[in-house]
């Protein structure tokens, strides 16, 4: 029997695990969190049961079906609180895993091998810096979403949602459903860009009609709750004494540069900002997978990466939302298990429709270069090491440095505890670095998760069963 390891139990990983088991493989499904569902279906833990949690979700019935079938499948082993911190592909595919509560010392270390592996670790928000974004009260939009769904927390009473992309809509809805007043959704893309990305050839989106209904639902919700949706606008500053008290909104030109004289101020205690998503590339890079020029894992129509036995699905292959993640997961799991291509039914067609959605999100909402003009010299760029824009610029200019590595070493930007996950791509674009070679990129980091030195000492050297 083939053994397939699936890393990440979001929509992509859940679909992959089930498809692999349906195709006759034995499966181990791992997630660092203590529940299944990933970011999309992030939910309250079993210690906090409720009768109508489905109200917070789209496609909740689909999730319950997936979760139920995975729970009943004898051939699927589920390991939660299982942090994969390294992957080796030299001989067999091996994942190094720590089992136990987040960041606890003395977690059980295991090395899991498999015939094939499906990587589905998802993505995290990308937030562009702006003056005052380091203040308490500024959150990534994903944080507001995760806290509303997974904790029933509203991050503020009067909240502003801003950035770019369709994701801002569900965030605003979750915030209102958690009791916050959402003062507006400020989308950087201007109406022309939105139309260019979303309107042409609408039939191409038919395969993702369900996503269309979901988005239409959010718009109806926001109309009903009088949440204004304002395209061509951005939060260009957050102000306050020790925490956010007000935000400055400005109109943007087509390149996302603020239009002088259009600033207005809103009293708010929370700002939730996301300008897109960054794929979590540590594991695929560690596995040796080729990363494409778009900085996603390169896969073929079977979701195969450039490394034998390593498949990838979900947001690490492109930002296409839940439908793309599900269908890519199905294909990846099926093929990783050795399943026949002819048995995949409508999956390939749906994968193409999902890819169309990915292209449209990028065309309509992709980051435009003018945003840097809302920075000031004292705007923190690297949050961990508190490196301001002025210092970064001065060092890059004085040393004529465009190499990310040397600017990092001189300024310490990107060398803090988050290991450049938050600021890496921003620093690259501010100094004009060229990450395309793959060597000088902020995506590369030695470990996928922090490991305590004491735990490293006690790690097994041979894989389980060897």
């Amino acid at each position, binding site marked *: 029997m083939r053994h397939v390891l699936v890393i990440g139990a979001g929509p992509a990983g859940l679909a992959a695990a089930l498809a692999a088991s349906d195709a006759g493989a034995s499966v181990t499904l791992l997630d660092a969190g203590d529940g299944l569902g990933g970011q999309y279906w992030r939910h309250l833990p079993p210690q906090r049961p409720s009768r109508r949690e489905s109200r917070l979700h789209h496609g909740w019935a689909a999730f319950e079906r997936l979760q139920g079938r995975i729970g009943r499948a004898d051939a699927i082993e589920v390991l939660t609180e299982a942090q994969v911190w390294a992957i080796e592909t030299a001989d067999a595919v091996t994942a190094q895993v720590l089992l136990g509560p987040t*960041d606890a010392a003395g977690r059980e270390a295991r090395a899991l091998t498999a015939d094939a592996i499906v990587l589905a670790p998802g993505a995290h928000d990308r937030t562009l810096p702006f003056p005052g974004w380091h203040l308490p009260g500024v959150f990534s939009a994903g944080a507001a979403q995760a806290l509303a769904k997974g904790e029933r*927390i509203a991050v503020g009473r009067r909240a502003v949602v801003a950035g770019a992309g369709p994701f801002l809509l569900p965030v605003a809805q979750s915030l209102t459903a958690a009791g916050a007043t959402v003062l507006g959704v400020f989308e950087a893309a201007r109406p022309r860009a939105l139309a260019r990305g979303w309107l042409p050839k609408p039939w191409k989106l038919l395969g993702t009609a369900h996503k269309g209904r979901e988005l239409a639902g959010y718009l109806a919700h926001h109309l009903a709750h009088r949440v204004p949706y304002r395209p061509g606008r951005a939060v260009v500053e957050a102000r306050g004494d020790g925490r956010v008290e007000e935000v400055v909104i400005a109109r943007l030109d087509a390149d996302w540069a603020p239009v002088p004289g259009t600033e207005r101020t809103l009293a708010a205690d929370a700002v939730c900002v996301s300008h897109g998503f960054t794929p979590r590339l540590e594991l695929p890079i560690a596995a040796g997978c080729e990363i494409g020029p778009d900085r996603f894992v390169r896969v073929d129509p079977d979701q195969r990466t450039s490394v034998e036995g390593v498949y990838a699905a979900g947001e690490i292959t492109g930002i296409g939302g839940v439908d793309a993640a599900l269908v890519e997961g199905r294909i990846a799991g099926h093929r990783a298990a050795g399943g026949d291509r002819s048995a995949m039914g409508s999956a390939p067609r749906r994968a193409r429709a999902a890819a169309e959605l990915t292209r449209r999100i990028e065309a309509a909402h992709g980051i435009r270069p003018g945003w840097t003009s809302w920075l000031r010299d004292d705007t923190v760029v690297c949050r961990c090491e508190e490196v301001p824009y002025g210092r970064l610029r001065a060092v890059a200019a004085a040393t004529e440095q465009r190499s990310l590595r040397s600017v990092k070493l001189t300024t310490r930007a990107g060398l803090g505890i988050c290991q450049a996950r938050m600021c890496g791509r921003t620093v690259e674009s501010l100094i004009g670095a060229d990450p395309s070679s793959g060597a000088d990129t902020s995506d590369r980091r030695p470990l996928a998760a922090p490991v305590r030195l004491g735990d490293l000492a006690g790690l097994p050297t041979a894989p389980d069963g060897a």
Partner: protein
Amino acid sequence: MSAIVPWESDPIRPAEPRPLRISVDGAPVEGLRGQSIAGVLLARGETAWRTTVAGRRRGVFCGIGVCFECVATVNGESDVRLCLRRVQDGDVVETRDDTAQDDTVEDRS
């Protein structure tokens, strides 16, 4: 200010939550079973609990364990991401103040 949806009026109709107690910097703090430690603090309206070298206050930023801004010491173990760590009754949380001393601080602005 952050706040938790009161369970009695939450439309998802939760079961009555079960309380627990932890200590944060020596003071007793009430939480609910199933919260993350960050969730316990945010439910009390606390949005910042760490102080950076430059003296800035920080709390949750990304909410999913990638930014590491919400870290604190839990039961003696440093650098635990509070947004991911499920709270246990009796947890001992110590927040972190990294503010540099005036005479040693380099110019960070």
